[in-house]
């Protein structure tokens, strides 16, 4: 009886009694979800265009953020702050594009047409290389990202909203909008979708696979940079940043590997779901359930839609 009460009644009583707290939980959940989506987005982009499940996406975020802080440190205090930031961002983007070119040349091209799982494995190799190289180049200390992002808290009628979270949400929103325009309205975007649909058909109408891959991996690198900045603002840039990829896995699975809106909505569902579960249901029992709860939640959704919420329908024929 106690068990059922704790499961079915108490949480709702708490919610009812403290609606402000409920609101704050929901807002924090959504904000956390946005951060998950940012990481998941990078995975989706690459998977969509090149069919690679990029294990190294978390390391990409770390590498990008490390490069950014490293370059900012090197430029020193001589120049005005905004100029430093702009130059550093530009250079980091250039590095990520270069990385995409290298990945395409040395990893993807020799492995073209291999099975999914082989490409997956290759990205593991890539993540090893980047971890070693990043550490070697920029050191392992905690580095503070100082882009002048707001860090204060707004008190909206008793509900705390972090400005940094809002910035992250706005950035994610605009990024998705830009990507949507890019995919739907530009020539390259349409070529990208063609590649995602069918490599050979795309090749036969004269689309260069290699070029498209470089573009996609560059875009994913830029997304990783944004994710690295947002997560890194909170924790400082350090090795642990590469582990954020684990947070994106349930989001991906829930939203479907190939859907950009899926990544966003999946992120929000996971974010809100795990926060609400942790705070209202498991709080009294010791908690720390967020990690597995996210997967259980995804599992429940998958039971009804085996291809994820927005994934392509799986058609099976003999």
């Amino acid at each position, binding site marked *: 009886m106690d068990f059922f009460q704790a499961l079915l009644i108490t949480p709702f009583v708490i919610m009812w009694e403290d609606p402000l*707290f409920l609101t704050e939980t929901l807002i924090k959940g959504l904000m956390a979800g946005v951060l998950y989506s940012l990481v998941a987005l990078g995975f989706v982009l690459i998977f969509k265009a090149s069919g690679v499940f990029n294990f190294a996406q978390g390391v990409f975020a770390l590498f990008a953020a490390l490069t950014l802080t490293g370059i900012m440190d090197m430029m020193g205090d001589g120049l005005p702050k905004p100029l430093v930031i702009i130059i550093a961002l530009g250079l980091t983007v250039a590095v990520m594009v270069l990385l995409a070119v290298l990945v395409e040349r040395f990893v993807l091209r020799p492995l073209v047409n291999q099975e999914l799982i082989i490409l997956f494995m290759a990205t593991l190799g890539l993540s090893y290389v980047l971890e070693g190289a990043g550490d070697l180049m920029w050191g*392992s*200390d*905690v580095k503070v990202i100082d882009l002048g992002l707001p860090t204060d*808290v707004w008190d909206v009628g008793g509900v705390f909203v972090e400005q940094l979270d809002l910035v992250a949400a706005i950035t994610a929103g605009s990024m998705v909008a830009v990507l949507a325009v890019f995919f739907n309205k530009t020539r390259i975007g349409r070529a990208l979708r063609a590649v995602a649909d069918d490599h050979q058909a795309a090749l036969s109408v004269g689309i260069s696979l290699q070029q498209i891959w470089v573009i996609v991996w560059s875009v994913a690198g830029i997304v990783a940079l944004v994710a690295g900045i947002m997560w890194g603002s*909170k924790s*400082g840039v350090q*090795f642990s940043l590469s582990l954020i990829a684990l947070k994106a896995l349930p989001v991906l699975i829930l939203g479907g590997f190939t859907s950009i809106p899926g990544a966003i909505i999946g992120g929000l569902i996971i974010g809100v779901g795990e926060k609400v579960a*942790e705070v209202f249901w498991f709080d009294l029992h010791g908690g*720390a359930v967020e990690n597995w709860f996210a997967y259980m939640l995804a599992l429940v959704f998958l039971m009804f839609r085996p291809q994820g919420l927005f994934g392509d329908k799986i058609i099976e024929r003999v």
Partner: protein
Amino acid sequence: MKLNKLVLGAAAAAVMASAGLTSIASAYEYTIPQLVYRTGAYAPNGIPLANGYLDYMEMLNQRDGGINGVKVNVIECETGYNTKVSVECYENLKGEGESGAVIINPHSTGVTYALIPKATEDQIPILSMGYGRTSAADGTVFPYVFNFPTTYWSQASAFIKYVGEREGGMENLKGKKIALVYHNSAYGKEPIKTLEVLAEKYGFSFLKLPVDHPGQEQKATWLQVRRNKPDWVFMWGWGVMNQVAIKEAAAIRYPMDRFIGVWWSGSENDVAPAGASANGYLAGTMHAPGSDFQVIRDIKKYVYDAGLGSGDRDRVGEVLYNRGMLEAIFSAEAIRKAAEIHGTNEVRGVHVRDGLEALSFSEADFTRLGLEGFMEPFAVSCEDHEGGGPVAIQQWNASEGKWVIVSDWIEPMHDIVRGLVKEDSAAYAKENNITPRTCS
């Protein structure tokens, strides 16, 4: 399978060849394997710890020609804070050099647990200074494990004393609410039992908030802090968890001077990302921060001026640097003591253990070592491997960018902690068929 044997054989040949090369060194020297983590998720903490250790030993070699004229050879092995790699490192280095490993610093709670039985068997003393298994303080069950100057449980009791003092007396603890935000692992769970016992004794309520590794996302934890409004928050965190927790605490406007971190949550790294909002954050410590000590001046003079420093000169004197240095000081003094007891400079691990048990530090000893005002006197004994040294609370001053000790040295509640230690070590002895030795 054939291929693999070949590769192994080649590797073995390489190892043997190199072993042959290194064993030519003639003079007796003390080999100290250091399991360090300068890479991986905890590297930001591992680097200053390792640097402090290396620099002090280098200083001894440069200034005094080693310990009693015998050079110290510190061999680092990179573990990335991984237990499996650490076991490999340990096995690789335990027999290194003529002396063999004279003392070992595992540098992680998980590794300490794995090495306790192995090192006991190999007769190499483990110095897990302020970490590892707390109940190893019972020297009768754990003859080769030392965790002085003080332990997690002692620290937890000292925190409660500090809180009592701030609240204006221990009796005012009644009805207060204290939350513990902890790394969800054996390390993070260490203080729970002590705090539960104390909660019962002093009548405060105790709230446990676990954070899973790595701890980059803690919104749910801090939502609960916000709802339950504890009067004090303690934190047993490690790595990225610390930085995020301090940031999140600031984001819910939790008063920083009621937020106390364990000594592994109170370094310059932990407060840096939060910037000004971390001002006033408290943390436990067993030694003073800063570089205003004779020993550090010596390190700068003999090591850094000679271009032998292992890190950044500016970072000498950081909290974790000083802690690594303290570890080295304890190791060196134990070797010195062992040589004195056994009347020879050629001491091995088994002798150093006797040295560790005979260690005692008075104010005069600290002055001799150039550590005036660095910490309080304490003594280790055969029975008591903890030493029971006092704990201080330090506070982060964000505008000046440094830690300042703000409390007196707080004596832990020895009676309570000792009882818990005995209980836990007895259980370990029973499970592993160990007969506790007698200490007289």
